[in-house]
């Protein structure tokens, strides 16, 4: 009982910020790389993918958290997968209803949200042990962190590779697009650049706070 109460009180700013900074799925945990590299050819695609994943993440964490005391531990993973697959199907229909063009651009990666390890990881590591509100706050942070990560990649690749941002042309006629950036290798280049930048920032922050380096 006492542990439960302790967990109930545990909603702090860090519950939300965990996914955005300390445990950012893209830049720190390096999870869900398959959609991260594949759909980030434009900021619009990256944003839509991020929001779709956030929706699935938050909804499944809420449901998993609500039934966490009822589900026998032997069948918990099966239950989580059924729940996650349900919300992915919902997103699949919703995106088709909103825009077929977007649906074709995201392709199989919408259905593949089912096997995105960020979602199952959150359900197992957080939502199954915490009350609904805390789970939702944490999942929302993770989802926003993932969206920010995708958007960072998508925007960089679109600007460099097509000279546009959200489909709006940024430069004049003279701009020569750096085509490799919207091709698959460009995904790796840009991801590498962002990972480098992020670890530099983290190390510097850790060095300032702790007075010593971060291994």
């Amino acid at each position: 009982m006492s542990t439960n109460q302790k967990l109930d009180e545990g909603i702090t700013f860090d519950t939300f910020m965990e996914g955005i900074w300390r445990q950012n799925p893209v830049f720190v945990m390096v999870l869900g790389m398959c959609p991260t590299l594949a759909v980030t050819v434009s900021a619009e695609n990256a944003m839509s993918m991020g929001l779709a994943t956030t929706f699935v993440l938050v909804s499944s964490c809420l449901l998993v958290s609500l039934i966490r005391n009822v589900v026998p531990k032997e069948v918990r993973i099966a239950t989580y997968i059924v729940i996650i697959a349900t919300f992915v199907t919902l997103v699949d229909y919703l995106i088709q209803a909103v825009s077929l063009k977007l649906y074709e651009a995201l392709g199989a990666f919408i259905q593949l949200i089912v096997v995105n390890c960020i979602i199952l990881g959150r359900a197992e590591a957080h939502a199954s042990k915490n009350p609904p509100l805390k789970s939702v706050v944490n999942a929302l942070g993770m989802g926003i962190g993932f969206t920010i990560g995708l958007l960072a990649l998508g925007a960089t690749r679109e600007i460099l590779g097509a000279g546009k941002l959200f489909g709006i042309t940024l430069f004049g006629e003279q701009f020569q697009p750096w085509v490799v950036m919207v091709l698959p290798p460009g995904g790796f280049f840009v991801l590498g650049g962002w990972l480098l930048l992020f670890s530099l920032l983290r190390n510097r922050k850790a060095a300032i706070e702790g007075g010593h380096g971060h291994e």
Partner: protein
Amino acid sequence: MSEPTTIQTTPGSKMIATMVLVATVCGVLIVGAFEGTQDAIAANKRITLERAVFKVLPGAASVREYAATPTGIQPLTGAMPEGGVKFYAAYDQAGALKGVAAEAAGKGYADVVRVLYGYDAKCQCIVGIGVVAMRETPGIGDKIITDKAFLQNFEALDVRVNAEMTALANAVKVVKHGSKQNAWEIDAIAGATVTSKAVGRGINESAQKLMPLLVPHIEDVKREKGNGK
């Protein structure tokens, strides 16, 4: 019904009950979403198709799906009949046939290039193309959308059928950039030959199949019929 061991396990009935409960809730959610979005999705598909057809046949106002089969033309409802080829008949405001559109697909550099072409029954020629789907290299293969000289090939591409109505009189052919001489040839884009050839091959394949079935019965679709689907 005695327990042989003392290991604590959840009874199977409880596991099954949990799974059934979760699956039921999820099933209801999915059916709800399907029912809720069905109309919007159908409308979206229709708009996407109409937009594609209107682009290759400017001036058209409505589209109908048909199947051209060896026994004649019939409206496409449900499954495609044996040996049938799907095509879209586009009509203007007054309900007269504006042209026919059909899909063509050819293997490109990265993946299959799918295009929609517009056919004019009066000149028996292709009057426009639009790309439906492709994954060609940006900046190279995607010139098939933007290259004006290439698109001029499809302003009056000859696809007349031969006298026996068995095949095209002249197969559509992609030729080296700058060497187009006949109305049934396509001038390839310099530097994007693979993609140009994919378009040409796809159109040839599709037209060879469709035109001999369509041309003898073109009168059947000259006027827009009924108001049903």
